[in-house]
């Protein structure tokens, strides 16, 4: 658990980066600090491991006031992932990951063994360990950054805009990977970003901060979308928040209906119905229109996943029927947008 008690940070130039912050980061959760530049999110993060000391107030990690702990010792017990990974260019990937174990006095052999385990944990092939950071892609470097932060198995992980320097597709992969790792490792993670979509995706709780170092709202992401505390939060959360909040509603109440199917490659004739093409494993492959032409399908959603996916599947489908699949990607049935909206309306009840 990390606790900020009335924490204020004023810099020498007179700017106030953090203003009377009172906030508790629960153990074992991912908490995101999000806000525009100058809102004090990175400053707040860096007060946890004493990269910055507060002007007034107290920061506690697991009940212990950090101001009483020798900074390098404190930092070795707190993982840190920095923007652009911050890997040491002159050290191999394996030695980068082994950094903290080596600092805390492990033997080189044991530290490298641990580093190899961590590369595997973050999904990197062992042979990458011998390379230098410059020989890795941006996404791979970020994974190494995460592995390095986890090397000494710290209970707390600080992540400072860790995925902001990679392209959107890679970023999404890294976010999924972080959520998978967290399910396995159960760390207390503070994650800083300026990207509200990232905050909503990875955060179990999100602290929205405002320029001048004020905490505007601290709530689970669904609540930010449905009940923003003020105009600033509403504007920051952005457009389509009604639609985006559906990400936090599960689709289990939406009944799926049967749909006529056609085996892939089988001959077709015109008919009054839309028919779904499925392969031998019953995985949807596209639609046959009433005039017998083949039309690519819309998005698919997994039964029980968010209702936003169900609605999108229905809206993006050429037939107006959203296709639901099971965990293996096999056809489970179809839904209409009307059905999905009825479920949303009834939940509002």
């Amino acid at each position, binding site marked *: 658990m990390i606790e900020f008690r009335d924490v204020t940070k004023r810099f020498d130039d007179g700017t106030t980066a953090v203003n009377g912050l009172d906030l508790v980061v629960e153990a074992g959760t991912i908490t995101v600090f999000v806000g525009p530049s100058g809102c004090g999110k990175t400053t707040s993060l860096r007060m946890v491991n004493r990269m910055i000391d507060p002007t007034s107030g107290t920061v506690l990690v697991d009940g212990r006031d950090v101001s009483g702990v020798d900074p390098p010792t*404190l*930092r070795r017990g707190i993982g840190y992932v920095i923007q652009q990974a911050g890997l040491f260019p002159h050290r191999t990937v394996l030695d980068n990951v082994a950094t903290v174990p080596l600092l805390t006095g492990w033997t080189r052999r044991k530290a490298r063994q641990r580093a190899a385990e961590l590369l595997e944990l973050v999904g990197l092939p062992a042979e990458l360990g011998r*390379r230098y950071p410059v020989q890795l892609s941006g996404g791979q470097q970020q994974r190494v950054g995460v592995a390095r932060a986890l090397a000494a198995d710290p209970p707390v992980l600080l992540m400072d805009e860790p995925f902001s320097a990679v392209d959107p597709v890679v970023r999404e992969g890294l976010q999924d990977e972080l959520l998978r790792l967290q399910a396995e490792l159960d760390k207390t993670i503070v994650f800083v970003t300026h990207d509200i979509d990232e905050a909503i995706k990875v955060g179990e709780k999100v602290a929205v901060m405002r320029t001048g170092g004020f905490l505007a709202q601290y709530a689970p992401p669904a609540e930010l979308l449905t009940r923003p505390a003020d105009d600033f939060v509403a504007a920051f959360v952005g457009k389509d928040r009604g639609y985006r909040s559906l990400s936090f509603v599960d689709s289990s109440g939406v009944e799926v209906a049967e749909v006529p199917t056609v085996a892939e490659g089988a001959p077709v004739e015109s008919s009054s119905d839309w028919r779904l093409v499925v392969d031998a494993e019953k995985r949807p492959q596209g639609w046959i229109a009433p005039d017998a032409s083949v039309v690519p399908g819309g998005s698919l959603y997994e039964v029980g996943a968010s209702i936003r996916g169900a609605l999108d599947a229905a809206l993006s489908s050429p037939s107006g029927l959203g296709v639901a699949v099971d965990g293996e990607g096999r056809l489970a049935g179809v839904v209409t947008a009307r059905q999905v909206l009825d479920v949303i309306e009834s939940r509002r009840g």
Partner: protein
Amino acid sequence: MGDIGKYLSDAGTRAALLDMLLDHVYLSLVPLVVSVVLAIALGWLCHRFRPVNATLIGLSNVVYTIPSLALFAIIPAVIGTQVLDPANVIIALTVYTTALLVRPVAEALAAVPAHITAAATAMGFRPLRRFFSVELPLAVPVLAAGVRVGSVSNISLVSVGALIGTGGLGTLFTDGFRQRYLAPIIIGIVLTLVLALVVDLLLVLLRDRLTPWARAGERL
């Protein structure tokens, strides 16, 4: 050419040449090593304390403009050594080479990206260990370039020391001019050039050994 063959045929001359060569190596490389250490220390000061930076860089520029012969002559007066003491040459060349190296060292340290030093701090490096484990290794390519210039400059400047009689290959030039005899002058030039090339080659090998990472990007 016949002159050179005759000159080298004498065993005593050959032994004297070897002595001069070894003197030359000693007089040029000791200052190089000492000044690398000094430049790292001063470069760190420049990097760490901004006001020191401007002062030291300015001072090093001034020092480098003092003529070498003048410096060789002034040093005994300043530190009380004998006029012919080889220490004069060693100290003078150390001053020059340090002046030459401080700036690139300070610049190389300043060029280490902030997110890398921040990462090192966040991992729990103490400042001194961070300097030697992260910042200094990253400054090696720039430092090596400076050291190569310094080595060539030292090897040529040691010859000037012969004018105040401190030994080394420069003695061949003073002797050759005095006796109006070309052979020792040519031998002196060739040996100086070969020495400079060999030292430079060794420095390149040393640099490559210290910085395999600097060329890793090319092997992608």
